[in-house]
C-alpha cells in the first residue's frame, strides 16, 4: 500500500467480485438481519422485493472483505519490489450509502473503489485521510450499492 503522499485523487482500485448464493444470503441474514425477505424464499416472493435478496449489510461487508484481500495483494507486490508498505485504517465511518437495487440469489457484484479526496488529518498530522467512493455493479450493469468511506493512511516518514 502506498503512502498518503503517493496516492492521487481519481485513482481507482479494482476490488473484486462476488456471487451471492442462497445459502450464504440466508446464513448472513439469520445472524445479522433476520427480516423475512432475506431469510425465506416464499416470504420474499410475497414481499415488494419479489424474490430472496441479500441484506444490504451483507453486500457492504463483502466489499470490505474483497478490499482487504485486494490491499493485501498490493502490499505483497510492494514488498516483493522491495518498497516500504504504509499502514492503512482504521476507517472513521462512511456516508451516503445507497442500496439502489436488491442483490438477488446468484447475482454477481463487481466492486470498484475510487479515491475522491485526500487531506492531512487536523487532529493527527502524522496521518492522511482518504475519502473513497465504492460502487458495486451487478451482472446486468446496474449499480446496487454505493457509499463514501473515510479512512486513515500513513504519511511518508520524514514528510513535513
Amino acid at each position, binding site marked *: 500500500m502506498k503512502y498518503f503522499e503517493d496516492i492521487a485523487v481519481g485513482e481507482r482500485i479494482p476490488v473484486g467480485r462476488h456471487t451471492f448464493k442462497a445459502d450464504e444470503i440466508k446464513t448472513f441474514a439469520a*445472524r445479522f*438481519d433476520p427480516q423475512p425477505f432475506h431469510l425465506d424464499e416464499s416470504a420474499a416472493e410475497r414481499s415488494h422485493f419479489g424474490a430472496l435478496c441479500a441484506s444490504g449489510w451483507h453486500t457492504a461487508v463483502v466489499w470490505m472483505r474483497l478490499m482487504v484481500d485486494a490491499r493485501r495483494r498490493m502490499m505483497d507486490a510492494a514488498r516483493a519490489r522491495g518498497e516500504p508498505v504504509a499502514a492503512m*485504517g482504521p476507517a472513521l465511518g462512511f456516508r451516503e450509502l445507497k442500496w439502489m437495487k436488491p442483490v438477488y440469489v446468484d447475482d454477481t457484484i463487481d466492486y470498484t473503489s475510487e479515491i475522491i479526496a485526500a487531506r492531512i488529518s487536523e487532529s493527527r498530522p502524522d496521518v492522511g485521510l482518504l475519502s473513497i467512493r465504492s460502487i458495486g455493479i451487478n451482472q446486468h450493469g446496474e449499480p446496487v450499492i454505493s457509499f463514501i468511506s473515510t479512512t486513515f493512511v500513513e504519511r511518508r516518514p520524514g514528510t513535513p
Partner: protein
Amino acid sequence: MSAKRYWEDFKPGEVTIHGPRLVTREEIIAFAAEFDPQPMHLDEVAAGATILGGLGASGWHSCCLLMRIIADGFVNHSHSMGAPGVDEVRWLKPLRPNTQVRVRATVLETRAPKSRPDFGFVKCLFEMLDEQDVVLTTLTSPLMITRREGNAGA
C-alpha cells in the same frame, strides 16, 4: 389481526432502547476473519501496535450488530420494507471485547412520499452505547415502513 406497527405509528422524538447484547472476543475475531481480516480486529498484539491501541471490532461488525439488535427490537415488529440506504455512520470509539452494548433509537422525522401511497420513511438516529452509556457508533438511516392507510387488510 397483526399488532405490527405501521408507518403512522412512528412519531418524531420517540426514543427507544434495544438490547442488551454482550459482544465477545470470539465473535469479534470470527466476524473479522470472515469479513474484515485486518490485524486490529484479529489479534491483541498486532492490534496494540495500531491506531486502535488494542483489539476492537470491525466497524462493519458494529453496523451488523446494530442491525440485529434493532431487527429484534422493533424492525421485525413493524411492517418493514427495508431501507434505501444509510445517510451516515460514525465509528467514534472502538468496540472492545466483552462489552455489553445497547442501541438507542431516536425517530428524527417521518415522511410519506406523495408518489408512493404504500409506504413512508421513518428516519432514525441509532446510537450504539456501552455499559457507561458512551456512544461508540452512530448510524442515521431512513427506514421504509408500510403505511396503514392504503393497505387495509394487510
